């Protein structure tokens, strides 16, 4: 016996309409507030162009200082081609790299599509728009550059790692003699680098490059081990993403407040 059916659906849900009874709106709201807070702070801090150095510490927003007024600058002060209408800050040169890495990150994409674009607001919750392009066409097809952002961000991470090494060498203000030591700032920068490494090396593109792209990993034992390590980090990618976002902001804040004299850096030894 065949069943004849007519393709009729239940009514199309309106924006925000759902049969769910849980507080589905909490997660997108938390994501919206968390990312918005970071965006506002990072933009403000990037345009300051000051208070990003304190003793051996460099704010991760300003590292590497490709062009800039400090002695850490690689190629000297502001380049002559810098547009006059745009305020100069060393962070504006380097910050777009991690910013685009996070913007194109698979975890953040899913999170901000929901929180900022309501596409959808949450699972089985009605959307505000009827049209949908997804990541199949411009502009979101550009998300496919994520792996290139990963390569460049890996270089930036290595520099941040070197910053941690530099953060254990303290100069005596009177004699100028340099000695090994660890301050709270050293720990803050080190923790930030560890969390950033967990985020970056657990990235989905890294997982693909490490071995996800081949079907017979057993032929490359090293690849199998790399793939297993990245997969292990990838399982907690969301946690790495949020904790590293927090510590990178906090590292800048710590260096900034120490430099402004608001906080004092405690030297552990």
């Amino acid at each position, binding site marked *: 016996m065949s069943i004849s059916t007519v393709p009729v659906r239940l009514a199309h849900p309106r924006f925000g309409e759902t049969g769910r009874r849980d507080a589905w709106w909490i997660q997108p709201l938390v994501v919206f507030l968390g990312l918005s807070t970071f965006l506002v702070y990072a933009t403000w801090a990037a345009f300051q162009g000051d208070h990003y150095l304190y003793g051996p510490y460099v704010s991760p927003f300003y590292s590497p200082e490709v062009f800039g007024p400090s002695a850490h600058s690689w190629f000297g002060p502001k380049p002559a081609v810098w547009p006059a209408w745009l305020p100069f800050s060393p962070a504006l040169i380097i910050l777009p790299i991690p910013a685009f890495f996070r913007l194109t990150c698979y975890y953040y994409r899913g999170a901000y599509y929901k929180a900022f674009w309501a596409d959808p607001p949450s699972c089985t919750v009605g959307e505000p728009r009827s049209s949908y392009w997804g990541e199949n066409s411009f502009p979101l097809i550009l998300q496919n550059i994520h792996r290139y952002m990963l390569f460049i961000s890996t270089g930036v991470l290595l520099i941040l790692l070197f910053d941690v090494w530099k953060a254990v060498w303290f100069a005596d203000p009177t004699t100028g003699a340099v000695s090994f030591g660890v301050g709270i700032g050293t720990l803050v920068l080190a923790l930030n680098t560890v969390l950033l490494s967990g985020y970056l090396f657990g990235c*989905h593109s890294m997982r693909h490059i490490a071995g996800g792209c081949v079907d017979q990993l057993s032929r490359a034992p090293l690849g199998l081990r790399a793939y297993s390590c990245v997969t292990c980090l990838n399982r907690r990618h969301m946690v790495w993403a949020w904790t590293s976002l927090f510590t990178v902001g906090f590292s800048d804040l710590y260096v900034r407040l120490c430099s402004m004299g608001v906080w004092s850096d405690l030297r552990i030894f």
Partner: protein
Amino acid sequence: MAAERATFRIWRGDAQGGTFQDYPTKVSEGMVVLDAVHQIQAEQANDLAVRWNCKAGKCGSCSAEVNGNPRLMCMTRLNQLDLSVPVTVGPMHAFPLIRDLVTDVSWNFEAKKRIKRFKPRPPDAPDGTWRIAQGDVERVQEFRKCIECFLCQDVCHVLRDHQMFDAFIGPRHLVYAAALEMHPLDTENRIPDLKRAHGVGYCNITKCCTKVCPESITITDNAIIPLKERVIDQLYDPVAMLFRKLRTRD
């Protein structure tokens, strides 16, 4: 949970229209939603249409929406629900309604046929058998847990809200494609189809499919994103394309 009464608000209707109707019934410890629905069917609504089979979360037949969440009715225990208010039980929204809780999911079987079949390499041994390392098949074994309940298809907003059945095959079939594409013996190339005919680019990684999967398959992270990366390898990344061209020339 001692024996008590609970109200089930069940969708009653067909292609012409319908409404939710309340059915108060006695419930007891250990019951699942499907038990309650069967009880209502036996005692109050003999004509209630509900599709079910194994009652053990393995056949994927009793997919429905319980309190707005896509769930298997047989795996949704009543002690997980707030019984002080009516429990809403409706059909899957993404698919055409046949009657009451039964939807027409036949599109899924047609869509599956569009995916290129398994094409193994020539046998490794003269007796026609292959040799596979366990580590190589472990990754795809996860995908074989799929029971085709189509809850992931139901929750996916590309199908549910935007009805893009012609352009996007949905998470279930991306899992199927991943199981074939990542298989160590398979030699078929499904990547161009995944981009164009199957529309993997329409997935915007909301992970709703992963959340509702009763078999706990990590659909987004282990199937869809790796497929997206393979599509990038072959069709978007100029460096990877150049690298592959040089390697095949060697």
